[in-house]
């Protein structure tokens, strides 16, 4: 493999890891507060559709982003209503939201645009275009470091940089602020939070809304950054891969970045080597495409060792007698 190819693969790794990372951090906020969220997938899908649709109608990627976040937050609130207010089962609520999003997006897309469940292709300002960082062209002639800067680091859409910045930001919020302390506490022992005179319900809703916002950005990136418009089931299990990455990362922000980059790399490899010959045997495309999913299964099967989830995760909070 030559150097330009390596740069290209890493470049696409970064782009493919972005939605995973955003969704993974979304899940991190929710699960750290004790609300399991398997609806990352559905929220991303709904956000992808809403952003694709509104960007197509308005011609602005920013309006698309706002619509994506709005759609995702609405589903988050639904999840919150079911699992926090009414103390329902978080998994069932999550599954319901996934089904709801999968069906509703295609249905509404077909009704609005009559293009077989897709949204119209986005042109110009309808997409988030690549940003050229300062001096990218000047520095590109420097050997090795030049291409790394101009090709790999520069030239992504703004949402990629947002996702990366979200990692230290998440770490800071969780471990250096009052809100973060309370959020982590409510996922570990809500009774401690309650007796300290803080609202368990309020904190959990805040976490769920943050989760919605991040999922919204992730979905918007799929439709307006990575691709140009919404297509049916375009999340393709990314929400579940993000969940696997979250477990792999043991609910910690920096590890989430590394885990998502690993999954992104596998997706990039699969895209790049669609027709790979190893010792004269052609590896089927399908096998390459399943690599990230195989890794997900391996990781979830316990390859990571002991991952201790937040202790109150999945449990609705009821005051005990």
């Amino acid at each position, binding site marked *: 493999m030559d150097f330009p190819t390596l740069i290209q693969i890493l470049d696409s790794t970064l782009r493919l890891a972005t939605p995973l990372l955003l969704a993974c951090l979304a899940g991190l906020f929710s699960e750290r507060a004790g609300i399991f969220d398997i609806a990352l997938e559905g929220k991303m899908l709904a956000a992808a559709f809403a952003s694709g649709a509104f960007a197509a109608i308005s011609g602005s990627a920013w309006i698309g982003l706002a619509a994506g976040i709005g759609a995702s937050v609405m589903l988050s609130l639904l999840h919150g209503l079911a699992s926090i207010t009414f103390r329902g089962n978080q998994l069932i609520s999550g599954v319901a939201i996934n089904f709801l999003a999968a069906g509703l997006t295609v249905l509404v897309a077909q009704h609005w645009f009559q293009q077989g469940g897709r949204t119209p292709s986005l042109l110009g300002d309808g997409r988030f275009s690549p940003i050229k960082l300062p001096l990218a062209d000047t520095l590109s002639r420097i050997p090795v470091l030049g291409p790394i800067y101009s090709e790999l680091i520069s030239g992504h859409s703004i949402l990629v940089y947002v996702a990366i910045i979200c990692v230290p930001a998440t770490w800071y919020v969780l*471990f*250096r*602020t*009052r*809100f*973060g*302390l*309370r959020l*982590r*506490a409510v996922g*570990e*022992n809500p*009774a*401690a*939070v*309650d*007796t*300290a*005179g*803080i609202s368990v319900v309020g904190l959990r809703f805040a976490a769920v809304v943050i989760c919605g916002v991040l999922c919204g950005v992730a979905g918007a990136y799929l439709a307006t950054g990575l691709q140009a418009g919404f297509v049916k089931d375009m999340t393709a299990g990314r929400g579940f891969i993000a969940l696997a990455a979250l477990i792999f990362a043991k609910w910690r922000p920096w590890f989430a970045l590394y885990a998502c980059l690993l999954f992104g790399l596998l997706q990039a490899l699969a895209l790049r080597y669609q027709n790979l010959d190893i010792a004269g045997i052609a590896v089927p495309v399908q096998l390459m495409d399943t690599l990230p999913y195989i890794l997900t299964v391996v990781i979830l099967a316990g390859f990571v060792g002991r991952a201790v989830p937040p*202790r109150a995760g999945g449990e609705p909070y009821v*005051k005990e*007698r």
Partner: protein
Amino acid sequence: MTELAIELRGISKAFGPVQANKDISIQVTKGTIHGIIGENGAGKSTLMSILYGFYKADRGDILIDGKLTAIPDSQAAIAAGIGMVFQHFKLVENFTVLENIVLGAEDGPWLAPSLSKARKELKSLAEEYELNVDPDAVIENIGVGMQQRVEILKALYRQADILILDEPTGVLTPAEADHLFRILRNLKAEGKTIILITHKLREIMDVTDTVSVMRRGEMTATVKTADTSPTELAELMVGRKVLLRVEKTPATPGAKILEVRDLRVVDEKGVERLRGIDLDIHAGEILGIAGVAGSGQSELLEVLGGYRNGHGKIVMNGQSIDLTGARSDGQSRRARGIAHVPEDRQREGLIMDFHAWENVAFGYHHQDEYQRSALLMNNRALRQDAEGKIERFDVRPANCWQAAKNFSGGNQQKIVLAREIERNPDLLLIGQPTRGVDIGAIEFIHQQIVALRDAGKAILLVSVELEEILGLADRIAVMFDGRIMGERMAGTTDERELGMLMAGMTGDAA
């Protein structure tokens, strides 16, 4: 003149059909330690939870420092200067001491200033009240005594003037409890008001100024501690004369039933819970295992009962017992004449949603006499069998169709005992026989255990209630940190000696 810190007027609270508090009025004088004593389920904890804003009273008024105060939630209670140390600590296990103390009482949106302020404050509180804790220790790595101090510090950090402690000594060694009482006296000397909820008479007599007695949701009396006696309080608590001692004749131990040699257990986290246990139990004797909760007693019961693997040697009636593998389960143990009344009856002893008769039948339902054919059980035979046992063990109500969860704690325990004892085992393992059981049922349960002993059976009794061990056991082994610290005959030892052993100090050092 005496100022009142707290006055409750006519507090009532019902949970569904259960009236937990009935028209309760109480006055607590500022700068005193006020005890509230009563049996389990008398409504003490409910009353204090109302005062702390955890529950809302159906009726009644709360006056703090003479002013009518509404306490709709814990935030309001904290603002009114009330701090509470719950029986089950409300700490975040994987947070540090400092983080737990700051949680909910932060000074601003950023943590760093709050933490450094708390660190300073903690140091001065530690000096003032003998409340030493390492601020950077993680809660799950420190002992329960230390965790309790963190809870007290939490309240003091929130400027509490009134401190409520709910059953604070249940998990402590006698030495730790004495330390706690010293802290409480220090706090009282500083003008704090303390409410101590307990069911232990000794603590009330030792440390309180005034004591209120609760019985079945009602306040039956408030007296000066100096003017009363343990016997009088016990009578007020249960409403009739009770025997505090268990009536039994001296044991006449027979042949060796169980022999345990170098028994070791490593738990899921890789921690060695049993570090080489040697024990003998004979027919016709009760061997009591004393120790602070978490010293390895639970693991000992679980290995013997057959639902935890171990290493070492166990010989029952001259034949060795498998500690791992297919023949080490509870069923195999039963076949060898070992019956087990587990410590946590609701989780391990009963299926709470199942009927009483099914619970009585468990573990024996597969035996031939209860089979109708190869596939079908003879439910009627099982039920009739269970009905007899339920009657003999005085389970109330004697309704074999009632779900286990709808019986009181004492009657649930009787159901488990009926199942295990009526099978006539050679060895009965029994853990915390009277935890959460009312005094009337305690007497009955103790009588059954003694009767089984007198019938020539061996009994291994595990209890964290030292009084129960002393009253019931013939021989006492004390456990600390997975080891047996020493064995004593019940007739020739006392709480002080056992307490030293429970704290890990051998008799010679004491």
